[in-house]
């Protein structure tokens, strides 16, 4: 099996939004829509005893994606390689998936009348390129690859991170994207 996924090393992320903009260029996303949102978690505490980290949020490409289950036209689907996509030819913009997604990573694009979300740059993955956000990340914080291949960069990163690997809350959908955070307390 293949499970393409992304791991983000938050200790290397500087919250610069370069991923967000690279993604917009690469995927021709409308103004006002982001596949990649960079959140600031914190600062917690009182000045000057503070801590914060940055958290890039994208589609989690869940193992059991609820967005796919609720889609009435089968526009949302999960590929063999684990990437969750929206077929814009089938999408009727009903937005059920937005309600079903626990992470708020889907956006309704009014102009296009369809749902937009991270594709893990499937068009690049098909020609053996990494997603745009991975390739340009100034902190080299993003790792992309096949989680089912024990020799892949992501598998190695997951093993090395051990208990410092975090995922968003699992409500039965089994989110895929992993976050490494060693220097701070995970609060997301």
């Amino acid at each position, binding site marked *: 099996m293949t499970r393409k996924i992304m791991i983000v090393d938050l200790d290397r992320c500087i919250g610069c939004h370069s991923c*967000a903009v690279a993604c917009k260029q690469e995927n021709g996303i409308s103004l006002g829509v982001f596949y990649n949102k960079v959140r600031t978690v914190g600062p917690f505490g009182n000045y000057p005893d503070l801590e914060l980290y940055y958290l890039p949020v994208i589609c989690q490409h869940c193992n059991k994606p609820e967005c796919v289950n609720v889609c009435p036209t089968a526009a949302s689907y999960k590929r063999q390689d684990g990437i969750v996509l929206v077929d814009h030819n089938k999408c009727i913009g009903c937005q059920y998936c937005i309600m079903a997604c626990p992470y708020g990573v889907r956006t309704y694009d009014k*102009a296009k009348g369809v749902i937009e979300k991270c594709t893990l740059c499937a068009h*690049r993955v098909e020609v053996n390129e990494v997603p745009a956000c991975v390739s340009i990340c100034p902190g080299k914080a993003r790792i992309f690859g096949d989680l089912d291949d024990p020799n892949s960069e992501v598998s190695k990163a997951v093993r090395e991170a051990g208990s410092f690997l975090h995922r968003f809350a699992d409500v039965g959908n089994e989110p895929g994207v992993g976050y490494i955070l060693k220097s701070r307390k995970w609060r997301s």
Partner: protein
Amino acid sequence: MNNLNLTRRQFLKVAAVAGSAASLFPLGNEVLKGLATAAPAQPSDMKVIQSACRQCYGRCTINGFVKDGRVLKVEGKPGTFSEGTVCSRAFSIPQIMHSPLRIKYPMKRVGARGEGKWQRITWEEAWDIIIPKMKEVQEKYGGHTIVFNNGTGRDQLILMTMQKCFYEMGSTGGFGVGNVCKIANDDVQRRIVGNPCQFTGWDGPKTKTILMMGRALYSWGYYDWLTIKRAQERGAKLIVVDPRYTVAASKADLWLPVRQGSDLALILTFINMLITENRYDKTFVAQWTNAPFLVKEDGFLLRQSDLVPGGSTDQFIVWDETSNSIQHWDAKAMAWSSSDAQPALLGTHAVPSGKQYRTAFQALADSVKMWTPEKAAEVTWVPAEKIREAARLYIDNSPGACFMRGQKIEFSNHSSSKSHAIAIMMALAGNLDAEGGNLVRPDTPHSVSAVFQALPPHGKIRKETIANIKKYSLCPGQAKISGEIGGFAAATTRALITEKPFLPRVYWGQTTEPMAGSLDSRQVCEALKKFELTVNVDLFMTPTGELSDIILPAAHPNEVDRIEYPQSGHSWPAANTCSIRQPFVPPPGECRDDVDIIFDLAKRMNVDMGWKDKYHWFEFALAPSKITFEELRKKGHLTRPVTYRRYQTGKLRRDNKPGFQTSSGKVNLYSEDLKKDGWGPLPAYIEEPFSPLSNPEMLKDYPYIFFTGGRSHAYFHSEYRMSPFMREIHPFPTVEINPKTAEKHGINDGDWVYIETQHGRCKQRACLTTAIAPHSIHCDHDWWFPEKPVTDDLHGIFECNPNAIVSNDRVHDPAVGTSNYGGLCKIYKAEDGPPNGIYMTAQQLEAFMPKAPGRE
């Protein structure tokens, strides 16, 4: 233009890009409609062009994907110092290049200044207006009444050719950003160390400790973060000195939350600890600095000429502990009078006449004695134990600890002392040109850095101007930017208003927006209106452009040929690299390369530029690297290997003798030059005016420290406000307020807020964050709104701009002309909400998107 041969892998990738990148211009836009319905692009239609990014001073290497004269996308180019990474600003390139707001033809103003009425003219018509007026003014009033403004520059070559051209006309500068950028402290470093060493050249790959002051990582070259992170991963420590909990502070091993403008106290404390704890590098200090030189009671150094009638003024007297007698260092011969001299560093020593003199080092030790961590804590508001901890990290890891700074610490009435003190700290700790320390950036001819010395000799008019600088300078006896030419923005503004010491007549602005970046924007506006001729060269109609007589259309940096150098702030290999910047597409309309415009102006003004054009200059600059410009175009970049302790090998001096390129040949810890320029010979802490310590009675009405200068991840000073992508990620001028402070004033996150000083008020949108202290307010700088009509405050240049609320009537550093842009303020909710007519939604930003080809 270099059309790369595509490999099969790239072929597939480009095919994929052609499918998606066409939609760089989103749906609803004519471009997409055109491209979406066209047959799928053939890879042979698409060119991949290697170049460099000029969206900030990082100069990352990039690839442009170009089809049918349009840049469809930009990617990082791997295999160089930037390792294929780029920041958000790179993605504004296609939007800026193809912006519907681009100026494409020369224009002349046909209405009143600021009325926005323009008429298209030809280049020849433009020159026919400019040249006779410039010649008339030069003849009638003198070249010094022609002022130019070079801003931060679309690149270094523009600055250098502008300076060359205008100085040769007799201009002494005028506006310009020398006093708010690294130029001011580069100038101090030249006097102390001989060449700059505080921004560029920190040895990240080998350092054990990084002391970073006033830099938040977003300013330029994000690849520096990779260097820092890798250093941390191998055990190096990062100390960040900043009043705000910036991204850098959040990644630091130790953050010193210093009070605004008090950072010099920390450095003086480090120096004091290095001396009193006997931890300074004695060999280096004794042999390679002027610390052992004896000092006279008038503050100047003791020379042979002071002891013997007719004696040399180049021979500096020291006390030699080997012979227990006086000896001297001959700065001309670059030699000691005795080959085994062991000059005394400390103490007071008698010369044969019996007169006693202190060593320069003793004078330094005495001057910093008061700076204990406890004393520094009172001034900086950083706890003494944290200061001690930082000093321990820096001192215990020296040699091998490096220092890095942002430009904000320049914003001070004593920035000379800061740069001076930092140089002393590095020298005492043995970190100058040492592994893991700070490498000096020499201007001796060597590969990849010739931009810094590749200028021809001065002409007749320029020499005459320099010889009589007091007469021709706009700030006689005060600022000397770059050590030679007078004039800086504050003085020029004042001269225009008061007509003293004389009235400047002609203004030439290029790559700059002085109303955004200079003190007191409204006064700058009034000043600009007084010129007889104003020319502005830019890509867009800017607020200053609106006040001009003539607008000349400039090419985008990715529409021209250039040798690119990562500027200011980087570790090596970036600091040792030059790369190709070549056009993705030709300039639109009648836009021209800034440098070509200057060469054209020079020819018409009969100025000898030394080189006949930029290609002539490129060949000269590349000669030490033994490569032609066309070869660089193919090769992409060149990196010079790093070497250490070059003061021992003669590589830092033009005459190839061991030592430093300074007046004494040694590091001038004790600076006679700074003394001559109105400073003391040793650094001294001066409290900024309008601070809680210097002006406590003001706190009653203005209770908060007001400061600016924090860098944005989306903008480069006043640039890119017309890029939809940048406006999306940084939509509004933002004021940071601590939630406790905001609560007192009933301010909520996202409210529009007035920030008011004694000089006026500006409006910004509140971001409530504990990253700022309750006693401080931080404002975004350089905001204006291209979408606002010119008739509304010149595109809104005053309403949200904190530089509009700082007075020009304040103390400037006498040696370099810098000054504090902050002060004290009060804040309150803006009941009238956001500024009128600014774009608030994504839908509105569509107006900034590139239009379809043929429909521009």
